[in-house]
């Protein structure tokens, strides 16, 4: 643990810190619940450390209370500070930090719905995940809630924010959409064509994934992690496995770590191509969309030949990878060489087509302040001046041994987000090539017989942005697994990105943010 000026925190809050524990690059500070706002505010503003996750745990049986955890990332030092507070069942309140750290908004509402702990002073205390027909006093992530419970439906109504005035109309869209996608409701308020307000309402298909994780055996849990967000399955599996490996104190063989880099970058390639195809479709550039989709399909077929699965599933396991891909080196290199030539040609064509550029430049602008406030991650964040990438800031797998650049831009429009992706495609190809050329000999998996009790963070940079897992193991089973998918951070950004844009540009803005319904609502 090496955080510059950590003594400043100790000095400033000396008498208020009740307990301090360090494990790996994670520093846990337990404080009284009234101190949390001040301490979080200090860390966030003084050290410029973003809030990357926030969650509660039900430890009433062991320690007699609930705990709320605030996770801050120190990017320059590759470290994390986790603030812990106790919240008693008899007084299930804690002070909201949303007015100081806007990114906490959804986390606090999530904790309110799932654990029944109320964030006092939250600017928007409406329900987020439990809908209005869900009865009061039933909290799914409390330990005494049985997973097979079917609570009765009650009557209730959700209050949308209203914009009223002469000539202001509301356009409700969804939850059922034209394409075969997942459900979500968008409520636009427009005056003429420009959008003056958008409110999103999600969480229509909550699957209770975090509850499903509990008491699940570890080898099975990897497959659950893999299926949380279908097209980011490697990133999720890698993040989850890394948390387990950290707790077990196991060194993953180098060959496995290199293999993970190859898998993660193959995943990024097909995702980015899919997004570029989608943006081309939404600006009616069918030629570009067809070619981008063709290139995406080439990667998917390569995935299938290399791993046996188009979506790269079933490759990761705690301790390493399950299949050696060393013998596929030539095939991957050959396919990527052809892919790179075709992609370069295509992207030049797309960016030199005026009908495309007219639609994507200056569209869907997200200001750096907004991106920072909401903690927008991944390509969307990097397009808005957030120069963060887990691969570089908190290196995992073999990223610290390979060379790559992290493209970053400031303009924050659809064009910037498309450009970031196209630049990342080139970097990903470079990473795969380097990893293949220097693939070390040796085992691909370290044996993990039993994992001792403990907890740790696992993280990775998915194509959509950072994925954060916090896993707590007890008796070789999962006690609590908090999953934070990049889309949970990025969805709110769309409410800001569409402002002052016209309704027909909404699909492009939406596509350029590449938001997952499934990863958001697990």
């Amino acid at each position, binding site marked *: 643990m090496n955080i510059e000026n950590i003594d400043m925190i100790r000095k400033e809050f000396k008498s208020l810190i009740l307990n301090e524990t360090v494990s790996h690059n994670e520093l846990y500070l337990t404080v009284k619940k009234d101190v949390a706002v001040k301490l979080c505010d200090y860390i966030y503003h003084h050290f410029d450390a973003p809030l990357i996750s926030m969650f509660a745990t039900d430890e009433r049986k062991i320690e007699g209370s609930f705990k709320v955890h605030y996770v801050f990332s120190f990017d320059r030092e590759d470290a994390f500070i986790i603030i812990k507070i106790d919240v008693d069942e008899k007084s299930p309140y804690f002070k909201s930090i949303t007015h100081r750290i806007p990114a906490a908004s959804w986390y606090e509402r999530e904790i309110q719905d799932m654990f029944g702990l109320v964030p006092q002073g939250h600017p928007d205390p409406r329900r987020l995940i439990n809908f209005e027909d869900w009865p009061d006093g039933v909290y799914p992530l409390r330990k005494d809630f049985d997973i097979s419970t079917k609570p009765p439906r009650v009557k209730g109504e959700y209050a949308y924010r209203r914009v009223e005035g002469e000539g202001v109309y509301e356009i409700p869209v969804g939850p059922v959409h034209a394409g075969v996608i997942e459900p979500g409701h968008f409520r636009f308020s427009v005056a003429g064509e420009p959008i003056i307000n958008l409110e999103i309402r999600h969480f229509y298909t909550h699957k209770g994934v975090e509850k499903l994780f509990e008491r699940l055996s570890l080898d099975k849990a990897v497959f659950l992690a893999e299926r949380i967000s279908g097209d980011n399955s490697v990133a999720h599996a890698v993040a989850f496995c890394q948390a387990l490996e950290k707790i077990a104190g196991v060194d993953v063989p180098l060959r496995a770590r290199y293999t993970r880099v190859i898998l993660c970058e193959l995943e990024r390639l097909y995702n980015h191509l899919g997004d570029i195809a989608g943006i081309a479709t939404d600006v009616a550039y069918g030629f570009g969309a067809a*070619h981008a989709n063709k290139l995406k399909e080439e990667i998917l077929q390569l995935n299938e030949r290399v791993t046996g699965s188009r979506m790269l599933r079933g490759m990761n396991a705690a301790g390493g990878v399950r299949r050696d891909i060393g013998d596929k080196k030539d095939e991957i290199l050959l396919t990527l060489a052809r892919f790179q030539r075709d992609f370069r040609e295509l992207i030049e064509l797309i960016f030199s087509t005026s009908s495309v550029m007219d639609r994507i430049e200056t569209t869907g602008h997200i200001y750096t302040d907004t991106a920072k406030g909401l903690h927008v991650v991944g390509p969307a964040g990097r397009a808005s001046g957030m120069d963060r990438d887990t691969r570089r800031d908190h290196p995992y797998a073999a990223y610290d041994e390979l060379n790559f650049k992290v493209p970053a831009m400031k303009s924050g429009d659809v064009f910037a987000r498309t450009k970031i992706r196209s630049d990342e495609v080139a970097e990903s190809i470079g990473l795969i090539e380097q990893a293949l050329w220097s693939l070390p000999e040796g085992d691909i998996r370290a044996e993990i017989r039993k994992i001792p009790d403990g907890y740790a963070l696992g993280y990775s940079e998915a194509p959509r942005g950072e994925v954060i897992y916090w896993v707590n193991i007890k008796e070789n089973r999962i006690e609590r697994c908090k999953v934070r998918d990049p889309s949970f951070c990025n969805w709110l950004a769309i409410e800001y990105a569409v402002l002052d844009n016209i309704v027909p540009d909404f699909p492009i803005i939406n596509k350029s943010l590449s938001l997952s319904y499934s990863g958001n609502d697990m």
Partner: protein
Amino acid sequence: MFEIIRKTLRTGSQTINYPQEPDEAPPGFRGKPELFQSRCTCCGECVSVCPPSVIWLKEENGEKTLTISYCGCIFCGRCEEVCPHGAIKLTQEYELASKTKDDLLARIGWRS
């Protein structure tokens, strides 16, 4: 415009004549798991590791049956990995659509 035509011509046709002509999955593909009665010893290893729990071992009137349902199979290959006798293998077959759920069950059985 010229560039677009040039790229279109150079790319050519990309589609294949499926299903008129078969599209075979590559070697190493994780498809339909196949059971081999002659090798199975009914040890139940595959039953306990299956993540979606779609493999069952049943004993009724002195008859043991091992059933796998392809409905919920996630093709992870854990059963193949743990089977000590090679009695379950993932194949390259992927065309599993059927009209009834019963068609998606595979069974092997023994009378003791």
